[in-house]
């Protein structure tokens, strides 16, 4: 299996820069997810790696070869498309064989063996004689993945492969993809706009915005220590609360002052910069009702506007001053619109972003992340 190394990759369509000087290293056997809103350049990046789109500038290496100018079939990749891209007039088996015949250093028997092997892995043996029209969406995507498997590629490229499936099937296929990756250990690059897919699938996740990479990190780090305001708001659902505050510095003690509350931020020495005003971020589950918080917690008041029962929790939309704040409270809490709540925040989970959108402060630091681990498998 090969690593992929991307250096200064740029793609311009006439005047539009779709991908802007991206650097990214994908380890061998890693599952890396490219995630971002539509138009952020994630698909274009994938298509450049596949060779379906030319590279304007930059270097692309797969393994130890520079592949910028190699045609797709010589790059050792296989790709799965969002709309499956199966040939509608061919059966599942024919679809899987069609490309193999063209690569053609395999005998027909070898190809048959491989098709059968891939079909077994994917549990689609009984679908091999059927045409795509007779298959459900999930079955089609399995055949499409099977077609990629028979190539035994160095690198798997998946372009939103689950987006056309219904929600339940998506969750199931997600788990199957993970399992498949663990069995095959192929380097996998997965593009999606769905942050849940990104979080659940990736060894690491690269968040793209506007043609640039905002952050590349393991999912939990991305969630706990977003480096930019964009990542903070994009990853996590419901999104992180961001409210504007003024910051007051007094040595190492820093206070965030908002029209409706004032919080003193712990570990003020961790500010990497000292902007006078900034965006203060806290996730909905890190805000709690004061009654559930420790007695010495700093509290403030908010007025409830809407409540949304999510089943396992209650999402409260409330106002602090003119700013909206989302709070996750326990399910079945007796809270109704118009109520005034006493709220507290988890002081280990506070973030501050400057006006360029970069994080200048997290109330805990990444190096301490290990101590946050609540449960580790005991050594045998």
């Amino acid at each position, binding site marked *: 299996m090969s690593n992929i190394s991307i250096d200064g990759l740029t793609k311009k369509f006439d005047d539009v820069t779709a991908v802007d000087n991206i650097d990214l290293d994908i380890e061998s056997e890693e599952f890396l997810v490219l995630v971002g809103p539509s138009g952020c350049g994630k698909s274009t990046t994938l298509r450049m790696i596949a*060779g379906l789109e030319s590279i304007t500038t930059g270097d692309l290496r797969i393994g130890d070869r520079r592949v910028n100018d190699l045609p797709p079939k010589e790059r050792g990749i296989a790709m799965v498309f969002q709309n499956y891209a199966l040939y*509608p*007039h061919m059966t599942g088996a024919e679809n899987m064989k069609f490309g193999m015949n063209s690569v053609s250093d395999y005998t027909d028997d070898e190809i048959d063996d491989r098709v059968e092997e891939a079909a077994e892995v994917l549990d689609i043996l009984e679908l091999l004689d059927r045409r795509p029209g007779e298959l459900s969406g999930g079955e089609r995507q399995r055949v499409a993945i099977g077609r990629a498997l028979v190539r035994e590629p160095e690198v798997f490229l998946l372009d939103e492969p689950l987006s056309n499936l219904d929600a339940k099937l998506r969750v199931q296929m997600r788990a199957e993809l993970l399992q498949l990756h663990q069995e095959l250990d192929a380097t996998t690059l997965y593009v999606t706009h769905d942050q849940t897919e990104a979080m659940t699938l990736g060894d690491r996740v690269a968040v793209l915005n506007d043609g640039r990479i905002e952050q590349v990190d393991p999912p939990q780090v991305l969630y706990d220590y977003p480096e930019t305001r964009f990542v903070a708001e994009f990853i996590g659902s419901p999104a992180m609360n961001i409210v504007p505050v003024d910051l007051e510095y007094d040595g190492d003690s820093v206070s965030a002052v908002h029209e409706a509350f004032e919080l003193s931020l712990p570990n003020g020495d961790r500010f990497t910069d000292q902007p006078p005003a900034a965006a203060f971020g806290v996730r909905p589950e890190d805000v709690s009702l004061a009654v559930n918080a420790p007695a010495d917690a700093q509290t403030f008041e908010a007025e409830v506007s809407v409540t949304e029962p999510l089943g396992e929790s209650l999402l409260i939309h409330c106002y602090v001053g003119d700013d909206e704040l989302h709070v996750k409270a326990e399910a079945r809490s007796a809270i109704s619109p118009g109520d005034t709540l006493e709220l507290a925040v988890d002081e280990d989970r506070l973030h501050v972003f400057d006006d360029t959108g970069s994080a200048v402060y997290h109330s805990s630091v990444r190096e301490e992340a290990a101590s946050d681990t609540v449960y580790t498998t005991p050594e045998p």
Partner: protein
Amino acid sequence: MPEFTKPFDSKWQAAVLLLPTFVVLIAFLYYPGLETFRLSLQQTILLGAQKSFVGLENYRTLATSAAYHKSFAISVAFAAVVVVGTLAVSLFVSYLLFQVDVGASTYLIAAIWPYALPTAVAASVLLFLLHPSLGIITHYLELLTGLSLDWFTNGPQAFVIVAVVAIWKQLGYNIIFMVAALNNIPGTLTESAQLDGVGHLKMLYKVYVPLMSPTLVFLVIIDTIYAFFATFPLVDLMTSGGPDGATNLLIFKLYRDAFEFSNLGLASAESVVLFAVVAILMYVQLRISESRAHYGG
């Protein structure tokens, strides 16, 4: 039926709106059709001024006429050459148009403009361009190939020339439909094949042709009708059926029998036979293609 989806207040309103179509169909299609069939059972002189009922006599004449047999064979051969030739050349040109990135619309217009030319005009212009002694194209063809082209007197040459012109004239129509069909094929299929390095030719006959087969079936039928009926002006203006009947297509022969030899009854019988032949061909083509064409899903 919900009120808002009901298109008409009454059946009468619908009938009135359909009336113009029915009038045109009856006056210019069904009535002449029936009249032709009635005429085919009669012997006529002086353009039908005097008629007498002769039963199937006209059909018996056709069945035993060597000239008619020859015309029949030539028409079938001509249709086969024109249909196959048109489809093959159009497919080739369409595939090139489909693959080209720069200036695609310019090429497309260049490829389809002959269709915009009236057949009679095209025939007159090509008559001079391809004229055995005056034509600029024939001149250079003779220089390049060393052949001596004289299709005014050489039957097979005349057949080929008229067939080539007929194909050329029909290309535009075929190309429009084929390019549209090719562009309807999802781009990811092409990309998926690119990833595997599937060759252009293999892609054409293994993927594109099967996927555009509904369009191809339609074109086979339209081209067949064209070859049997719409090539009349070409023959009329370029060869008048000659030399020695080499381009005497059924549609031209029946016109001459009717209006030059004033034998309306016999010509009507020829019309009926031509109609029956083409109708049967349509049916066979549709049945064959129904089992082969891929209609998606």
